[in-house]
């Protein structure tokens, strides 16, 4: 697995490719934890380049969704296809994260714009 990490403020995108084997899952979990420990609350995982994942890999996304929620944010998934999409659907992990066909779809209004500041009269 290779992971490209793009960080902007409290948003972080993980662009993943290859096979997410158990050893890769440990590495990815550590990367996600490091970002969430550093105030990231909006997470995006693009799996368009991923062609294999098992249950050890899936745990990372369940855990990431929980971490994002605990930080007051949200985790999104994009680019699921083929066997990887099937594995997410069987386990319903795709329902725990908001799922989009492409990274560009997932990036619409994400992270959401901050609440408008109400100016005192």
């Amino acid at each position, binding site marked *: 697995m290779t992971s490209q990490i793009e960080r902007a403020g409290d948003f972080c995108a993980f662009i993943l490719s290859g096979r997410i084997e158990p050893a890769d899952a440990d590495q990815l979990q550590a990367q996600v934890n490091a970002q969430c420990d550093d105030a990231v609350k909006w997470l995006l995982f693009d799996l368009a380049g991923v*062609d294999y994942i*098992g249950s050890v890999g899936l745990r990372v996304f369940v855990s990431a969704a929980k971490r994002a929620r605990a930080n007051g944010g949200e985790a999104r998934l994009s680019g699921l296809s*083929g*066997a990887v999409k*099937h594995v997410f659907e069987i*386990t*319903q*992990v795709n329902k725990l994260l908001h799922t989009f066909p492409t990274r560009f779809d997932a990036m619409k209004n994400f992270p959401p714009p901050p609440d408008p500041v109400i100016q005192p009269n």
Partner: protein
Amino acid sequence: MLCLHLHNDLECLTRLQAAFAAWAETVGLDRDESLLMQVVLEEVVGNIIRYAYPVGQTGPVSVQIEQQPGELLIRVCDAGIPFNPTQQPPPDLDSALEDRQIGGLGWHLVRSLVDAIEYQRCGGENVLCLRKRWLGGNQ
């Protein structure tokens, strides 16, 4: 037929999946089916490697995969502690994110991706047979 005699080392799982992928190509299994059967092998054999033997003890794991009329048959044997995966409770997939367990999806995946699972404790060995309906191939 693919037959591998392995031991409880995660490196062996990588070797098994690579050997299966090459074998699957020769028998004409399509790519997604091959990847999904690799998931099954990761769950079943990975579980044996991690939990069947006491920490620090080396033990055998043998895997035999063959194409039979209308199906693929995967037979996995180990000499570890008795473990019947057919008795594992299903995970709760409907719980809210806050309550959702992080693990416990492996046997659910196996049950979902194959058509039959048979377990026997036989001569001090766990013997697990997995059957997957499959009508294609180069036979």
